[in-house]
């Protein structure tokens, strides 16, 4: 009974945590990009105002939409994004809530579900703009899955070849930083995989230059074109939670160190320091992979997204994998 109660508490706690952090990070992103474009930019809490406003607006149902699916898609997207947080190490607050019940492969699938829900919702909206956006979203998903899966499989293979139990567990990956197990050649491979992951993140989050599914100027909002009010707010919250999840995943794979591992601190202070350090790491990674790219680049055509991810980023990921393989053999 207490177990169930604890789980329910974790669900609400983590949902609140993910939404709050996600909105703060997207506020930071908007501020930083505005400064880079020599604008003043919105206040830090602008995304909160946006979501609060959307929650209080009318939620319209288009005339030729499929009502049930159209209304369910945003709920599924947010639920999947929050579920993802249960399997990720979130820095300082201990092991993942459902540690041992799911691993990196499950996280890969859960990362797909918000995008899939958007695709289904886009098709259910009955707008041709949303249909084109949904097709582009599917193509984008197929594109970034290859490099993302290569990165995660490389890590799992490395841990498995060292004889670590449960090499696919994200908790194990966080506890065993890969940098300590590779030589010079392998480190080069890990650096390449790190850059691959930084380039996969904006595609996963649908940000510029990989935002062709939304494409405000050509598709009028694309996949979200028919969504308004509460449903649109739920999609925005799902994206915010997914931002935190992608940041946490990158930290788990590439920068899993903690402050308390370096300096001896009393337990509660150490936990707080670890948590703040985790936030700094996530913010740092999102700054490079989301904000800088967004300010520096224009939108890529959908065909360039596919070529970019499969040909260039995909082969870079394979080169990283080969370097780590060679490092282990030699």
């Amino acid at each position: 009974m207490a177990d169930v109660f604890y789980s329910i508490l974790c669900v609400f706690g983590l949902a609140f945590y993910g939404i709050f952090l996600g909105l703060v990070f997207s506020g930071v992103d908007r501020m930083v990009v505005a400064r880079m474009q020599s604008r003043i930019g919105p206040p830090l809490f602008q995304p909160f105002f946006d979501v609060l406003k959307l929650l209080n607006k009318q939620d319209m149902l288009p005339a030729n939409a499929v009502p049930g699916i159209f209304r369910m898609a945003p709920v599924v997207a947010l639920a999947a994004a929050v579920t993802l947080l249960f399997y990720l190490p979130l820095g300082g607050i201990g092991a993942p809530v459902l540690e041992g019940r799911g691993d990196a492969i499950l996280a890969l699938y859960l990362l797909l579900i918000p995008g899939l829900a958007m695709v289904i919702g886009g098709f259910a909206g009955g707008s041709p703009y949303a249909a084109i956006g949904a097709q582009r979203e599917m193509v984008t998903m197929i594109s970034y899955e290859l490099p993302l899966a290569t990165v995660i499989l490389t890590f799992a293979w490395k841990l498995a070849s060292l004889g670590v139990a449960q090499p696919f567990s994200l908790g194990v990956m966080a506890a065993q930083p890969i940098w300590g197990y590779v030589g010079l050649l392998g480190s080069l491979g890990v650096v390449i995989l790190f850059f691959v992951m930084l380039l996969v993140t904006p595609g996963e989050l649908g940000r510029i230059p990989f935002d062709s599914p939304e494409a405000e100027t050509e598709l009028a909002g694309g996949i979200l074109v028919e969504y308004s009010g509460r449903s649109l707010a739920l999609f925005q919250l799902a994206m915010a939670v997914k931002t935190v999840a992608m940041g946490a995943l990158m930290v788990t794979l590439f920068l899993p160190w903690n402050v308390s591992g370096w300096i001896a601190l009393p337990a509660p202070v150490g936990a707080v320091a670890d948590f703040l350090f985790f936030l700094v790491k996530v913010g740092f990674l999102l700054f490079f992979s989301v904000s800088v790219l967004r300010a520096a680049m224009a939108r890529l055509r959908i065909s360039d997204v596919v070529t970019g991810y499969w040909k260039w980023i995909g082969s870079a990921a394979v080169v990283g994998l080969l370097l780590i393989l060679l490092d282990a053999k030699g």
Partner: protein
Amino acid sequence: MRLKANKALGRSLWVYLCNTGSCNGCDIECVALGTSRYDVERLGVKIVGSPRHADVLIVTGPVTRKMEPRLRMIYEQMPDPRFVIVAGVCGMSGGMFYDSYALAGPIDQIIPVDVYVPGCPTRPEAVIHGLSLLLEKLEKMES
């Protein structure tokens, strides 16, 4: 709760631009709102691509007969609460096209208008002033 909702609305006005047959002068001036010189994003204003996402409809141009049903449709696609700003003198009176056979009338004969922003073309500062007038109207609605 209602008061809080209006506060959030005032700090996050999403704008949809609609050209109903203007010469494109006012549209260029309105799009300039997003540039670093005027930067309306600091006020929470964002130009969106779909009327479903919008709170404010900025209409430019005298309404031509072809655009009349489209303008009405775009207004109906916006979720409540929704507001309309007319940018430019064409939309207020027909402007230089006031006696044209092709006009379906000034905008306020087709959809309800909240704020009029004159000018030919209207300057971006004037549109920002129009947005602030809309915020004043929102505050009056609260009290």
